[in-house]
């Protein structure tokens, strides 16, 4: 502890250089945080996909509908514990730009299949009880200032009420907790309510012959009891519907999420690649400055050694200096990135919420420590090997 003063004096000797270095490190880690958040946004859902969840979609593409009666067969497959279905609603709130990731679902099946979603039990019950109610993701509720009990009008370009109106009224019954999933940017309504859609909708959205009346859904989710049996169940479902008017493609939720992320694909990869290059370039520049500042003081280190400081002590001093710079710059950078990303939305449907997962935050912290180590270790090692005579001569 008594050496803290010495370290502080060293750091404050060239205040300007120290602050620039700290600031560059700050910016680098701010950038790192934003980058990670953006990547999570693009690849949303891959991390949190349940291993025991599968989903079935139309083989040709996810916009084709599946007959709702398929649920009956799938539910009976051995190893399937619960099923539910989702249908894309295409809703937006007030302005077309506020597009919602909104699905019509079978609520009872939903709470069984997605049993890890954090919806308080009484909110769950009120959702199940009210046909016109919805549950909304935490971040959606926050974005629009919605609260439980509110009645909100939501428009859609796809489903029209019997009177031709594109506006649907919903009661907010529950809010899905933010949790760690980040998968909280969605809205779920009752499929039964959607059935009210007028006949005009059917011409457009209801492919003839697929189901009776409005009996078509976008995708079917199922929960299985044993993730190891996923491949068998996939095979059983897909082979059963092979050569039928609506062939199916079943996959694990994780594979599906990964595939969906790949759709945005290239863009996210490219942004990630170039920004990481720059992150390291900036760190290199900052690291160089830090190492240089130690090299400039070679003579002083010689003096310290003359005064009786042990090699190890000097090495520790130099390392500590580098560490302090890295920590003082890096941690606030991460903190600010975390603060900012948890409070903004990009305004693009499907990338509703960007955030930094805890795991990535820890990687950031580890990088901060690594930076301190890497920039400190070389000068520290040089300091360790320093011979007093040479050191004093260099001044």
């Amino acid at each position, binding site marked *: 502890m008594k050496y803290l003063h010495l370290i502080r004096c060293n750091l404050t000797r060239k205040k*300007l250089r120290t602050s620039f270095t700290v600031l560059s490190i700050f910016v680098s880690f701010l950038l790192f945080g934003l980058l990670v958040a953006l990547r999570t946004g693009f690849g949303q859902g891959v991390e949190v996909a349940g291993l025991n969840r599968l989903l079935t979609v139309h083989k040709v593409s996810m*916009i084709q509908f599946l007959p709702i009666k398929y649920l009956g067969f799938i539910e009976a497959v051995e190893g399937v514990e619960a099923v539910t279905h989702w249908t894309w609603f295409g809703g937006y709130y007030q302005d*077309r730009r506020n597009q919602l990731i909104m699905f019509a679902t079978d609520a009872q099946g939903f709470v069984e299949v997605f049993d890890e979603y954090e919806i308080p039990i009484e909110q769950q019950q009120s959702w199940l009880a009210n046909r016109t109610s919805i549950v909304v993701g935490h971040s959606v509720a926050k974005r629009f200032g919605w609260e439980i009990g509110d009645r909100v009008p939501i428009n859609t370009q796809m489903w029209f009420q019997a009177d031709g109106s594109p506006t649907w009224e919903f009661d907010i019954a529950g809010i899905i907790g933010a949790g760690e999933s980040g998968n909280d940017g969605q809205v779920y309504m009752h499929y039964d309510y959607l059935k009210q859609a007028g006949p005009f909708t059917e011409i457009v959205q209801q492919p003839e012959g*697929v189901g009776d009346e409005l009996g078509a859904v976008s995708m079917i989710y199922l929960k299985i009891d044993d993730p190891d049996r996923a491949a068998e169940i996939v095979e059983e479902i897909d082979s059963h519907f092979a050569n039928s008017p609506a062939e199916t493609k079943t996959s694990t939720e994780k594979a599906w999420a990964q595939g969906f992320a*790949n759709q945005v694909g290239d863009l996210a990869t490219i*942004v990630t690649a170039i920004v990481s290059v720059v992150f390291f370039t900036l760190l290199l*520049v900052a690291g160089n400055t830090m190492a240089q500042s130690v090299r400039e003081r070679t003579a002083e280190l010689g003096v310290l050694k003359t005064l009786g400081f042990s090699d190890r002590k000097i090495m520790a001093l130099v390392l500590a200096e580098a560490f302090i710079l890295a920590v003082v710059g890096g941690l606030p950078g991460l903190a600010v990135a975390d603060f900012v990303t948890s409070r903004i939305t*990009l305004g693009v449907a*499907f990338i509703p919420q960007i955030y930094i997962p805890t795991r990535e935050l820890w990687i950031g912290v580890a990088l901060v420590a690594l930076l301190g180590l890497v920039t400190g270790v070389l000068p520290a090692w040089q300091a360790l090997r320093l011979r007093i005579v040479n050191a004093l001569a260099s001044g």
Partner: protein
Amino acid sequence: MAGAPSQNRQRTRIWLSMGGLFSWLAQVGAVTWLNLKNVRQRLGASLATVVGVAGVVMVFVGVLSMAVGFQRTLESTGRDDGVIVLRGGATGEMSSGLTLEETRIIGDAPGILSNAEGRVASAEVFAIVGVPKRSTGTDVNVPMRGVDQQAFAVRESIELVEGRRFEPGRNEVIVGTTAVREFEGLELGSKLNWGEVEWTVVGIFAAGGSADESEIWADAKVLQPAFRRGTSFSSVHLRLESPQSFTALKDALTTDPRLTVNVFQASEFYAEQSQTMTALIRGVGYLVGALMAVGAVFGALNTMYSAVSSRTREIATLRAIGFGAGPVMISVLVESLALALTGGVIGAAVAYMLFNGFTAATMNFQNFSQVAFAFAVTPQLLTQGAIFALVMGLVGGFFPAFRAARLPVATALRRL
């Protein structure tokens, strides 16, 4: 003759002041030259600045070239004399639907170009098929469009580069060049199973680099039953006699009691489709660029401050033998600008080599399907990059230059 001495005096004064200016310029030149020649001695730090600025400019130009390329692809898809008609309330073909009857009424509207086969209007079905993307191997949404033969007259830029057009009534498709390149299994002669039907690829078409090249086309009448669309269509694409007839057509269609439709000029329709994604990419580009610039400017400041402090004696000596503060200040600024510009030029050149013409495919959220595009590093972007570099150099050099100019000569010399 009386005026001569005063005239002479005036001329002398001009000469003297000119001389002053010249000597000042000579000073600037000398100090700056000395400075630049000595950059080599501070190579490490100077290089760090150059690399930092180069990195920033490279990323800045690279990310923005992505936005420019995406925008260019979509904008080149729509012509001024093209029109897209969708169901009322719909803003994309995905959420639109028109009956056969409605498409006929639309085709009869005034202002539509005619050719030998009739009105240049194509009632189209927009669908999506899952096709593996080459870069990842996973299925992505590829747009599949059922068209009328008039579609080729609506979009004149369509040009068969291999094979032939599909024959009406047969299960044949033609595929855009970028789709063939980005997605697997779409080569000429391939057989594909979509919607209970086996399709054969009989042709490959180019479309002037537009988004049409990412699509798969078939006869609308064959696509409808295969995708269970009955007799319904998604949209009508048509061509006007001239761009001026747009208003007349729009008025006719929107006031027709038999129709509830949205009428878009094709150029605006596609420009708008690109907006969300372009704005997002631009936002990322500017944000990342600005943040990195801050870091690079710190780097430049560090370099220039240490350059100034390592030259304390030199500067003080120069000042002592009569060099002014201005030339010293300018020399530092010029050095910083030169370093930044070098970095900027390198960064822009690398961005050009790496990114120009690089193709990528991403999701066009407006119709939920893939669109492939080529990055475009335009001269404007390169200029922007260079200006950006100069701004970084200016900011990074200004304060150190100021310090150099205000260096107390006596103190600095005493340190000798």
